[in-house]
């Protein structure tokens, strides 16, 4: 009996190391492909026959990527700052995936949450230890309310969440634009759509606030919220009854129904949870990073989050690390664009390649001629038709 347990532990460790090695090789493969693209797009140098110069650009670009993401305290702070909304939105998409739902709507939920948090942020005036939690809570509630819409529609009418969330994203964009022009939100002295400023005590405190001489360290307490969200998600998924029901529902909806679970309620709850996490991301951006809202403060984060959840296989730790990796690439990419003539768009491509390579262990195995346990990502969700 004991031997079996030991053997299983060893097997698990092998599985884990190979998955680590796999990730490393996937990142390496993506960087190699990226290097070729950098070289071949350097038309001016190539036309002059300066191949060595083109290759040197790759070196300095990748070096800037590393330095810009981990090379200094400032770089680490930038990485943390970029990763914060990615972690929260990643968890949002992941929790929906676990319940078999495809949440493309993190963008809209983030906008809804951000606007709710923003209102508390500028309408109240301290004290901070009351206002900040209230604003963050408002963000979660706003996101949850907006996320509940596709959930309710799916549960009641069967409307597909892929359609409804895309439509709600577009609608949220216009709603925010309209809100930013109302007296309630618009900054008094402005005519363009830009919101009032969050009051000073309403800001999420800066993580490195104790270092008074370093105002460039922008990371804020939203990161702590994000880490807490990962812990909550982990606990919820693995320890709570509802979390178990989510997973059962996600793996086999029919079986869950036969087992007596309230699948409609689960659908609504899953989308609400997803919306709440995305709403937290919105409040972190508004209360921490910007201190106000402009039209497009959600950016592409909601879509990046889908790649993150897929990369992290929707597990809590996986999603966290995937988001940190994406955040590091984001921060490093800015440095790279500043230092070299390589545009930051490279990192969008690198992210895509990493996801692709990690998803295809058989391909990595073929390229690097190594033995990798077939730890495939598995199916992300039940599929579109269900």
């Amino acid at each position: 009996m004991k031997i079996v347990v030991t053997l299983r532990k060893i097997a698990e460790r092998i599985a884990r190391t190979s998955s680590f090695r796999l990730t490393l090789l996937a990142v390496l493969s993506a960087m190699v492909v990226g290097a070729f693209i950098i070289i071949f797009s350097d038309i001016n140098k190539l036309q002059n026959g300066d191949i060595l110069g083109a290759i040197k650009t790759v070196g300095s670009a990748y070096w800037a990527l590393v330095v810009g993401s981990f090379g200094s305290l400032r770089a680490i702070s930038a990485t943390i700052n970029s990763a914060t909304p990615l972690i929260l939105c990643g968890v949002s998409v992941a929790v929906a995936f676990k319940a078999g739902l495809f949440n493309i709507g993190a963008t809209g939920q983030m906008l809804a949450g951000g606007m709710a948090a923003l209102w508390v942020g500028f309408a109240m005036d301290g004290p901070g230890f009351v206002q900040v939690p209230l604003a963050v809570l408002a963000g979660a509630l706003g996101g949850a309310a907006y996320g509940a819409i596709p959930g309710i529609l799916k549960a009641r009418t069967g409307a597909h969440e892929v359609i409804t969330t895309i439509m709600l994203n577009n609608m949220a964009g216009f709603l925010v634009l309209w809100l930013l022009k109302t007296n309630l939100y618009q900054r008094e002295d402005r005519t363009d759509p830009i919101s009032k400023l969050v009051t000073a005590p309403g800001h999420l405190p800066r993580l490195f606030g104790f270092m008074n001489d370093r105002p460039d360290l922008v990371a804020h307490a939203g990161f702590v919220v994000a880490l807490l969200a990962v812990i909550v998600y982990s606990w919820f998924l693995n320890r709570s009854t509802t979390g178990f029901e989510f997973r059962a529902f996600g793996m086999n909806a029919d079986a869950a129904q036969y087992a007596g679970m309230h699948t409609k309620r689960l659908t609504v709850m899953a989308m609400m949870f997803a919306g709440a996490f995305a709403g937290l991301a919105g409040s972190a951006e508004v209360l921490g990073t910007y201190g106000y809202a402009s039209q497009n403060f959600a950016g592409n984060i909601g879509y990046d989050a889908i790649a993150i959840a897929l990369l992290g296989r929707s597990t809590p730790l996986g999603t966290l690390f995937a988001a940190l990796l994406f955040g590091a690439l984001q921060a490093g990419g800015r440095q790279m664009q500043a230092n070299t003539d390589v545009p930051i768009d490279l990192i969008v491509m690198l992210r895509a390649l990493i996801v692709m390579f990690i998803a295809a262990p058989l391909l990595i195995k073929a390229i690097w001629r190594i033995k990798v346990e077939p730890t495939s990502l598995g199916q992300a969700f039940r599929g579109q038709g269900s």
Partner: protein
Amino acid sequence: MSTVDAVVAPLISAEQRKQARSVGFTLVVLGIVAAFVLGNRPGDAGFKLVDSYIFVIPAQPFARILALVLIALGAAQLLKGFGKWTNVVLSIAAATFVISFLAWAASGGSFSFTGMLQDTVTRSVPIILGAIAGILCERSGIINIAIEGQLLGSAFAGAVVGSLFGPWAGILGAIAMGVGLSAILAVFSIRYRVDQVIVGFAINFFALGLTSFLAARVLTEHPDYNILSPLRPIALPLLSDIPVIGVVLFTQTLFAYFAYLAVAIATWSLYHTKWGLRTRAIGEYPKAAGTLGVDVIKLRYRNVLIAGAVAGVGGAWWPIGMVGRFDQNITNGRGFIALAAVIFGRWHPVGALSAALVFGLAEAIQLKMSNLDTGIPSEFLLMAPYLVTLVVVAGFVGRSRGPKAAGQPYDAQ
């Protein structure tokens, strides 16, 4: 009487009854909106149909009469139901409502109605082609989330190749890019058995990253790689002489004619040829098809590549059919709208066509609305098409089921 009821009743499922009810409610709500919103602006609205003829609609009376009719129709639907005529009644009601809305928006002035419909068709072209690409893949059991990436990638290829070697070469370049991106989808999902949603999303990001990167690094320094004169609309002989319809449908660029053909061919071949039967079979139950001797893998490869070519033409629409250049993220989510059209149209080419036209109409109205003063914040008007889609999907389309085997890798054993 009661025995007939007892026999008939079970044939109508609870879901159908719920849908019938929501149709009734929608009609009533539309009627109320027509009465209180569309009926509040006096003045005549001119719908210019042809150069010499303007059709004048008095906005207020039109809206009020429409309101009464809609509420009556809604009540009739709730009380009795139109049965198999429900969809016809609803379509006519919706079309009339849109006209009343336009009359309300344009009251006191006039606008080119025909031009707007022409815009509708023009702007739905890439959505139609993207949706056909999606249908071809999903019918053969491969989920295609990568439509957006295929459109974007081929728009870029079309712009660059078209600028260097002319528009026809540009279209070929776009097709090559579409097929190339499709090949990635095919190899990863069929050979390496990767989750199709993951590859699809990765392709979207890859295309976005690659095209933005190259646009920023190469095209800004070499603007001559990114300028071409787009194809002009061709008026089809005879057909284009039909009043209104001739302008709307038959004075379009080649891309629109290709889209009509693509819908017709896809519909006919999916339902009336051996290829179509096999394609639908490998999308629903590949094991059975495989047992009967269909080469599932080969057919899947072929269909995904054809889909890439169709999406390639759709992507070429931006540089070669419309604006004459490539801009970063020029497709701006149209591929996702196409994906919605696939589901909205229930994986049927004609269904997807109608959905795409609805989105095209929405875009065309947005273009018109930007220079009409309606007193309602423009954001709400811009939001309307998405809201309509939401209501339609929730109320009438309901639970749509895709091909059963979509998303599952095929194992020959």
